[in-house]
């Protein structure tokens, strides 16, 4: 699975993407975050305040409870600020 980070989430983690295979019991975006925060201090810091994290699964906005089981690409980022 490709995991992408943008804006300050990327800065806190220290890189923009990683290819990773979470354990089989990781089934939702929220559970993926639970697992990711164990990977490094940067991950833990990036996900410290989950209400500020937005999720996209295969480039579609998603909710924490949405399944990532069949996902190819999951992205985490702050609320968007374009325009």
């Amino acid at each position: 699975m490709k995991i992408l980070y943008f804006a300050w989430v990327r800065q806190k983690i220290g890189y923009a993407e990683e290819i990773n295979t979470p354990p089989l019991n990781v089934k939702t975006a929220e559970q993926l975050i639970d697992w990711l925060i164990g990977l490094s201090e940067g991950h833990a810091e990036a996900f410290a305040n989950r209400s500020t994290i937005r999720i996209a699964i295969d480039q579609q906005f998603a909710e924490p409870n949405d399944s990532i089981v069949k996902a190819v690409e999951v992205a985490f980022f702050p609320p968007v600020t374009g325009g």
Partner: protein
Amino acid sequence: MTVCLQEPPFDVGLEISRMTAERKDVGAVASFIGIAREDNPDEGAEPVIAMTLEHYPGMTENQLLEIELEARKRWQLIDCLIIHRYGRFIPGDPIVLVVTLSSHRKAAFEACEFLMDYLKTQAPFWKREETETGERWVAARQTDNDAASRWATKT
């Protein structure tokens, strides 16, 4: 119907001329241009020296296309254009252009505003500002969410 994600600047006059050329059915053209500003009191008192817009390649284009499709479902548009730039900007630089064409002004005005409101909350862009004291990520504004959600009940 066009969506462009690009680094270089755009020429508003040229874009509108292209869209209206050889047409006799256009009665109204509405446009919005978003420009990088020097002041951002929401984030602090220091003037903004420059701003960098980051985006999510792939998803950004898809979201812009979806937003455009939604506008065309809701209003009778003859044509519309969204150009959104990314990269580094200084105050005064144009960042986004939305142009809508319709027979009568109401559809063009409303669709233009809708496109901007939706774009601000649905397109994956992030702004980072540079000031004399350092850099900061711009926080999302509740007023932008409110602006987008007021369209939710309208058809």
